[in-house]
């Protein structure tokens, strides 16, 4: 059981002429919170997609819990919390129904929930403190609650690796603190949490380690060193050693 939760080796992904990821290699250990930092277009989303098997790598391999992505998906190992912008919040589903979709991979052909599925969904909602809002339409939640509803879906799924795309975008300070505490607790309980974020402020409290991406891994280590101004300047296109100020 020594396989890392996520192991990426020599990963290169191109979209036509554009190289989104070049020779990315990194390992994320189990039961850790890893922050993925980089500008828009730095390849954060592409890395998530590669872990989920949504893009085909041009080179390199991805393993989740020691398994190729397709097998990891079928065993429900990969939980995904989407960006707010990619969700249709007017969709006529309740919070409880959305959380239940996390169980679908474990259900029969018609996805008819059994007692165990209902129990798992209820426990997941309880875990993220949304049990009393299970009957609400998914869009009738606050920004922070919406994020937690999708975390609950990944928990109902019993995913060992949780991928969160910009979980702090558009939520207030208190929800951010709640989310940070929740993710820390999930890691303490053995789940691996990978968070892509612009919110550098939240990272030291949240993460065990951080990865700085700019279509390649610029730095990977403890958050304090990765988030050092000199390192960040590299990622955001400002070379501190350069003579001229960057544009």
């Amino acid at each position, binding site marked *: 059981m020594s396989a890392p939760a996520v192991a990426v080796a020599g990963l290169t992904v191109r979209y036509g002429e554009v190289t989104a990821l070049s020779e990315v290699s990194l390992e994320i250990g189990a039961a850790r919170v890893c922050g993925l930092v980089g500008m828009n277009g730095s390849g954060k989303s592409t890395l998530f997609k590669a872990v989920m098997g949504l893009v085909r790598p041009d080179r390199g391999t991805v393993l989740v819990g020691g398994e190729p992505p397709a097998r990891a998906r079928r065993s429900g190992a*990969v*939980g995904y919390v989407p960006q707010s912008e990619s969700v249709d919040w007017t969709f*006529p589903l*309740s919070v409880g*129904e959305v959380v239940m979709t996390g169980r*679908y*991979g474990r259900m029969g052909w018609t996805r008819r929930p059994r007692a165990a599925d209902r129990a798992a969904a209820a426990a997941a909602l309880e875990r993220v403190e949304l049990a009393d809002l299970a009957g609400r339409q998914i869009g*009738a939640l606050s920004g922070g609650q919406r994020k937690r509803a999708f975390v609950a*879906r990944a928990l109902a799924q019993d995913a060992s690796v949780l991928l969160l795309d910009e979980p702090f975008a558009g939520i207030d300070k208190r929800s951010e603190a709640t989310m940070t505490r929740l993710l820390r607790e999930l890691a303490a309980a053995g789940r691996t949490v990978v968070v892509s974020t612009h919110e550098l402020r939240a990272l030291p409290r949240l993460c065990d380690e951080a990865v700085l991406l700019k279509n390649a891994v610029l730095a990977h280590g403890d958050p304090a060193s990765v988030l050092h101004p000199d390192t960040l300047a590299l990622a955001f296109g400002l070379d501190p050693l350069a003579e001229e100020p960057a544009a």
Partner: protein
Amino acid sequence: MSPFELLIAPLEYPFMLRALAVTLVAAVVCAVLSCWLVLIGWSLMGDAVSHAVLPGVVLAYLVGAPFALGALVFGLLAVALIGVVRDGGRVKEDAAIGTVFTTLFALGLVLISVVPSQTDLSHILFGNLLGVYTPELVQVLVLGAVTLAVLLLKRRDLTLYAFDPVQAHAIGLSPRRLGALLLGLLALTTVVALQAVGVILVVAMLIIPGAAAYLLTDRFSRMLVIAPALAAVCAVAGLYLSYHLNTSSGGMVVLAQGTAFGLVYLLSPRHGLVGARLSRARRGRPVSLGA
């Protein structure tokens, strides 16, 4: 005329009974499918597939194959062609859809014009409810039942596909296969409905009930009840009206659905125009709304 005469007298004709059965089945199957189509944003795709089946149906008629087979082949061919044109990069999706389905529809029109038995095939365009005989009725009933059963058995997967295809992928399902299933069922549904209202108006039955139901509830499971119920009421009302007013039956059914949608759009408690903007609606409509 007494209510009895209005409602029962038409049913003394066997052709009216068959017409009623076909309209009801077509309306209900289309309405259930429409719930997914309006939520995914596939109204234009519904329009495209329902028109694009025309050459398939004509060719099936020519070689004596089942209409459903021809429709299915051309429905899926249309979807594949749309995908090819769109993924070429330069042409946007709506232009790709518009180009492909109108071309296939035109091919269907040309085929109809060269096939000897012209009057028969023009019914595909406008529907021919009152000319339904037992073989057509059986075909509609069987196809309708199969389509409805698959839709309802796979409803949870299809809803997940509509809401969050990435999650469907992440838990090991195949969004591509679910999308293909929905499009295949769309082609079959078109065959069910073209007898009732014709290829041109099928798209109305594939959009209006779902759109109206979506205005009435925030629960997908309730949409799946409201949409077919509304469509069934409109089907019966439209058919009776067409009988008594001696008007086009397919046209009347769709007109009834459009009117029902209008009422829902105005009066829906939560999402209706009146509920949302009572004062503005009052200015636009001189009648008292009881407020």
